């Protein structure tokens, strides 16, 4: 296989599971900033270690196992008092997270439908926060409202989306 073919294979496999990898990382570090950083490092590492992947096996599971290694490496660098939940708790959550994160594709599909049901205000705020990556504080400062207002609005939007997704799940089942 040429280098170009390898690259293409990697991208086709990774594009199908990167949402899962991100979700898994976020479940363990529960912090947007850290998760973004680890996700980027993991993406690089996956490509570097792609030689070790056995073609035909579950790429998503392999990618998550690499991500797990990265996350715990990150957590080990932190001082004990900087860890919110502690190592034992994290290990316990990691086992559940591996399984739960595998469901993300279904959720994304339903979420896409639900997002279209949001009004312009809601969609715009979500885009500003999660597409433009503008910090809540900055959104609030720019528009002269408190950060609490933005947090509440985002939380409410997310809640509405989850209810919509759950409703779709129950209808399907």
């Amino acid at each position, binding site marked *: 296989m040429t280098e*170009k073919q390898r*690259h*293409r294979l990697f*991208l*086709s496999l*990774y*594009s199908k599971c*990167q*949402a899962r990898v991100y*979700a898994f990382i*976020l*479940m363990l570090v*529960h912090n*947007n900033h850290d998760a973004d950083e680890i996700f*980027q490092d993991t*993406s*690089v590492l996956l490509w570097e270690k792609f030689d070790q992947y056995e073609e035909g096996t579950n790429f998503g599971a392999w990618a998550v196992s690499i991500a797990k290694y990265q996350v715990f490496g990150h957590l080990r660098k932190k001082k004990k008092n900087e860890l*919110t*939940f502690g190592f034992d*708790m994290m290990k316990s*959550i990691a086992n*559940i*997270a591996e399984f*739960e*994160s595998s*469901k*993300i*594709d*279904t*959720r994304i*599909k339903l*979420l896409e439908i639900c*997002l279209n049901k949001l009004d*312009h205000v809601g969609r*715009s*705020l*979500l*885009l*500003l926060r*999660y*597409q*433009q990556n503008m910090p*809540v504080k900055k959104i609030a400062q720019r*528009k002269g*409202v*408190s*950060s609490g*207002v*933005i*947090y*509440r*609005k*985002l*939380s409410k939007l*997310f*809640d509405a*989306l*989850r209810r919509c997704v*759950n409703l779709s*799940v129950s209808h399907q089942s």
Partner: protein
Amino acid sequence: MTHKNNNTNLDNMLFLLLEGGLDEDGMQSIKTWLSSSPEAKKYYCEFINDYAAMKYHVNSMIDTDEEASSIASELDAEIWSSLAEYEKVAPVIEVNRKQPPPQRELIQKVVYPPRETRPINKFSIIFLALNVAAILFLVFFLKFTPPQKTIEVATVSDSINAKWDDANASMRRGTRLITMGNKMLLREGLAELTFDNHTKAVIEAPAEFQILADDRIGMMYGKIYTTVPPNAVGFSVYTPNAKVIDMGTEFGVQVDFNGNTQLSVQKGKIMLLAGDVSTNKDEVLAGVAKRISGTTGEISDIEFRSDYFVRGINSESNSIWRGQSTINLADIVGGGNGLGTGKVDMGIDPISGTLTKSAANNNGITINEYRPVLSTPFIDGIFIPNGRMKQIISSKGHIFKECPITSGDWFISPENVMRTLDSELTQDPVDSGSPFVPCIVMHANMGITYDLQAIRSIVPEAKTVRFRSKIGVGSETDRQCNADFWVLVDGELRYKKTRIIEKEKYYSVDIKLSENDRFLTLVTTDGGDLEDQAYTSIDSDWCRYAEPTLILE
């Protein structure tokens, strides 16, 4: 997944946790709840799975949703008026601090739809397209760049906490770099490369790059800031979807892992070629930032941030410069490098010349000996001024000829502190942006000499052109003060204000500096008060250099 309205508080806490807005009590509540049962952990994972799905999907809408372009600028007024209305009626997000949420309500059996083999979703297609661009970028290099001999063209001139990939693990300061060699992966930290044509490039991890020629570098991803001297005009940065050609300038380029390129021009101008080079080109001027879409190659305006890129590093002083235009001299007294690394409430012990926290005078009158300060390279020395004998004020033997005769007494070590200035009482109105400003508290009698030469090494790209500060006496006591302020450059008196007897009255000091100036000395003295039985000569002389700043250009 379950959802119940009476779990609103829990959901709000989890949401705040992910957004980084949860307080300590909230953290503790979540921790307690998570420890309570496997069901709690499952609910936590489900919640975050949905949050990640939302974030990921919204992020993937970047080039597919027409709304994106309008959002890039601002939300419209309608949105914010509706948010303001919402605030009036919105429920408060309460943190349940005492009782963890009931678990049973979370335990519900949920039947998930059967898993399906899904075709590549929208995000995946975007991701794939973006990265195909990355592949083509690599191919482009091999195919279209003229064959180069592998010659040495640059040097790793500095680095801070740099960790390289295994193939380049031995890379260190002084390592020579060749054209068309292996790609280099900087996993962590910062590295500065200096090309033989004197172009400097600061790379921020994670970054992967390759030196293509003596005037060309390819960035697969990561951040690079280049300073190109006039003789090297034409220096270029290649990214997966753009070519940035210098036209006498300083500029930063960031390539994200998805192949999008961001460009910020700090000085001069550059020529930007994106996508189809024949049609998609733009001349970008200083103070402008652009984004080049990884999917379409379209160029769009983005917010320019002057501090977005690291512009200079210095491993000796552990300095990372993001374009700050000032050096905070109070920060240096706190053991820092003037860019914010110092500690508040730290200072310099005038007897030992070491960093200390609130060293007090327990030994009475002190001789006016000049003591070198070894704990920071930016302060040459410290002394208790007294003109009774020749007052030396630098390691090179500069003399403070105008030094008044003082009691030789001192009270407390000079410290880096944050203080409010009472602007109503000031002679020169103080800009009231923040109520707290950095100050050096220099209770009389005290003198500090900064080494400007060492300070210049923090930001070698900039010149130190002025010293500015406000001086005055703080109101720590309600008794009468009487103090003098003196500022000298290389032993030459450049400013003095004597017999300040009114507290909280601040005066502006603004001194021009030249690149040849070596030492800046700040002094406070006791106003010539005599010792008496009730009070010492230095009583209530809580002198402050407020916002003591070196201005850079």
